[in-house]
């Protein structure tokens, strides 16, 4: 690594000011697990690191009118073990539990993970299925971006220069709704997924048919992707093996995975179909349970 300036702002505005000062060559630092790694590999060489861990309140996790608000500096482990998240969005706690190892989860932050925009990460897939919105702070104040519009390319987001991820807002599940996240790890328990799939399914009042579904897939392209075609197929249908197979095939067609050590493009496409089906089935079962509770 090579030397850089180091700043420890106490407020978001100070942080944004430092980022402005160095422009392109400055990078926000939260957990640093991804950033320091790329610096050690000498792939990036920022002139200034702005450590936002000291910004007061940026690590809060709280519930307000139907959404769980997670601060950018909350660590993966904070979310995984948060009583609030485990009560209101167990699927999210479970998803963060799947990320790397406890050592990494103790340090890596929610905001950092989003800004890093690695399509092989776990959390964005679940957040996408849950309809999360990213809270972005910039010189012009705060704006909200639907996660669907946040990731633009491999390691690239719609964050403008000088902008920061301040947090993420995740709507809690509505009535008769269930969600599930699955990570396919065929090699070893500590790895990126070969594919990941998350689904959120809402059933009709009778708890029989799918009223709405949000499905997201990871590791199958340059960004996490919504499986819109599959979502449409499910709407209004009862759960059958054929339906899940059809939904899987519908998604499979639209995918353009990057083949890597975790599977060829062809295999990832096939597995995306399988795990989409499995995730929907699991989410559906939870939706049924919640429908039963509400009745």
């Amino acid at each position: 690594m090579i030397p850089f300036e180091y700043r420890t702002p106490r407020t978001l505005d100070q942080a944004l000011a430092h980022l402005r000062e160095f422009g392109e060559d400055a990078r926000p630092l939260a957990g640093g697990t991804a950033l320091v790694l790329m610096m050690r590999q000498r792939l990036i060489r920022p002139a200034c690191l702005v450590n936002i861990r000291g910004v007061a309140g940026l690590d809060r996790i709280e519930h307000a009118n139907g959404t769980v608000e997670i601060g950018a500096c909350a660590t993966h482990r904070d979310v995984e073990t948060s009583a609030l998240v485990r009560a209101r969005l167990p699927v999210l706690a479970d998803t963060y539990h799947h990320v790397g190892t406890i050592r990494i989860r103790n340090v890596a932050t929610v905001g950092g993970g989003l800004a890093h925009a690695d399509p092989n990460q776990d959390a964005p897939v679940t957040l996408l299925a849950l309809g999360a919105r990213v809270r972005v702070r910039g010189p012009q104040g705060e704006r909200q971006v639907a996660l669907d519009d946040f990731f633009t390319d491999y390691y690239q987001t719609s964050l403008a220069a000088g902008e920061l991820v301040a947090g993420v807002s995740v709507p809690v599940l509505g009535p008769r709704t269930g969600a599930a996240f699955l990570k396919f790890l065929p090699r070893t328990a500590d790895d990126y997924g070969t594919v990941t799939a998350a689904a959120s399914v809402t059933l009709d009042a009778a708890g029989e048919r799918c009223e709405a579904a949000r499905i997201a897939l990871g590791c199958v392209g340059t960004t996490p992707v919504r499986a819109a075609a599959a979502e449409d197929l499910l709407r209004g249908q009862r759960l059958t093996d054929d339906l899940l197979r059809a939904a899987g095939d519908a998604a499979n067609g639209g995918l353009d995975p990057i083949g890597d050590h975790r599977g060829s493009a062809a295999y990832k496409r096939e597995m995306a179909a399988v795990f989409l089906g499995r995730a929907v089935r699991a989410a559906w079962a939870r939706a049924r349970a919640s429908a039963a509770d509400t009745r």
Partner: protein
Amino acid sequence: MTLTQTCTIPAPRERLWDFLMDVPRVSKCLPGVERVEPAGENTYQGLFRVRLGPISIGLTGNVTIEEQSREGWRATLRADATDRKLGGGMRARARMTLDPAGEGATTLTVETDLTVLGKIGEFGQPIIRKKADALLQEFAQNIRNALTA
């Protein structure tokens, strides 16, 4: 890695050929090319910038026309460039063939052998392949635009 791009351009072979052999002009069609100037017989010197997420690569080097046979409608370009900051570089040999595609149209096939070296190469071949593919597609598209404009 070998990358193959084929596209049909609504221009006769002659016109496309002359365009392709004008390296400074044609290189403007490759997104990221910031500078190309002659540096001797069939050789050009230039700067090419490409972003891989947070990683910005600045490649300086040479492009040489290794082979051009107007008779056979074949040409081979060789590019050799390095990024001192990152420590690494790339070598590419692009074989272009022009085939008639009906009235006033030509099918351009670009077959590129790309080798990515050093640190850049370590970043991940699959992603580099994807990126290179995308760039070449834009390249072909831009050539089409330039010639139909």
